[in-house]
């Protein structure tokens, strides 16, 4: 990459984090470019990325929906038993003055991850099939990017582990099936994220 001389805008790329300007040649699959100044990855195209993203997103969607109705932690103490599903955890604050927190928890561990999965599928499916993008695809992808920091499924999982240890001296605790489903969702999402090249998606949406 070299500093640009003329002003053919389509062949230029600027680092969103530091404004450094570069010229891009034809980008092949497997190519990666980092900003020379701040090391931000400008693009990273990977082979079969679209297909991998779609399949992991589909699998995660199914797992998240199934996990909603299964217990992820079960405890018992003195003969009393209680299992808690994700929905129970999200609604823990419901009814009291802290119900706002319920909304935040539902949003960050269920609603936003699901919305992002859906938006990703909506944006990328036609692109992978070499069809023209579906209407509103640009807005869908932009929304999905805005929501990214607010979808906190992986943080919830660490929270689970911490509560488990907190609970061990209060009662007998067991991890339910939903916990392990959520673990696989997090892994799938990590794979999906590592294959996602935002620059390439925008490039493809423009056509």
């Amino acid at each position: 990459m070299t500093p640009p001389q003329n002003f053919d805008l389509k062949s230029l790329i600027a680092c969103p984090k530091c404004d450094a300007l570069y010229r891009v040649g034809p980008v092949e699959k497997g190519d990666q470019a980092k900003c020379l100044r701040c090391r931000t990855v400008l693009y990273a195209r990977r082979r079969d990325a679209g297909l991998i993203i779609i399949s992991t997103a589909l699998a995660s969607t199914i797992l998240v929906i199934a996990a909603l109705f299964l217990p992820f932690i079960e405890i018992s103490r003195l003969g009393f038993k209680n299992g808690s599903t994700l929905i129970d955890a999200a609604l823990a604050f419901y009814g009291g003055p802290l119900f706002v927190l319920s909304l935040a928890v539902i949003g960050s561990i269920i609603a936003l991850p699901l919305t992002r999965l859906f938006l990703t599928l909506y944006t990328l499916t036609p692109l992978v099939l070499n069809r023209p993008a579906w209407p509103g695809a640009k807005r869908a992808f932009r929304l999905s990017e805005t929501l990214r920091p607010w979808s906190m499924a992986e943080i919830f999982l660490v929270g689970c582990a911490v509560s488990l240890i907190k609970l061990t001296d209060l009662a007998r605790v067991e991890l339910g099936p939903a916990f392990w489903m959520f673990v696989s969702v997090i892994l799938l999402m990590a794979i999906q994220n590592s294959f996602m090249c935002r620059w390439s998606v925008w490039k493809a949406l423009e056509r």
Partner: protein
Amino acid sequence: MIVTARDKGLVCCQSCARVWPIDQPHCGACGTRLRSRDQMSLQRVWAWWIAGVLAYIPANLYPMLHTRTLLHSSEDTIIAGAFEIAAHGSIIVAGIILGASVIIPLCKFFAIAYLALAVTRGAHWPARRQFVLYEVVEFIGRWSMIDVFVVAILCSVVQLSVAASIAPGVAALAFACSVIFTMLSAQSFDPRLIWDRIETPPTKDAT
């Protein structure tokens, strides 16, 4: 020598990295609003920063959890809760909780304030190191939500009628607000401002 988009009379789109003439209001590829430098950035950073600090105070003063078992009932603030866990022997978990709920938020307040002051007043740190600090703050901010999730999980799981029950305290809401406000503060910061100060060309260089 790095050439920036602004040097060439261009503006970079912060979501798709495409480049446009500097007076264009919206990105032609993805529709994001274009700003060469976000002039309002620092004002928003400080506004959210103050909100975050203010919410953090009640988060530490009021109880996070009301625990009730057959024998006794207790109310725990964040710090008291962590020390109680440490007293039970789980030093690592106590460390995670203290790290996520006390050390990370405090470091974030200082880091964001430092970055914002560095942009206006200048700083000892080189731009590269300031940028690394910015990226760390952006990455780590969400993880403070762990404690809120732990409260949600504990409250939903531990509902064993008379044997044991846990209810959320006001501090959980204040703490969640503090985390969200601080995330918004960090997101408002325009990292391109970090690099602008070093862009004045050195006078000793004749070329």
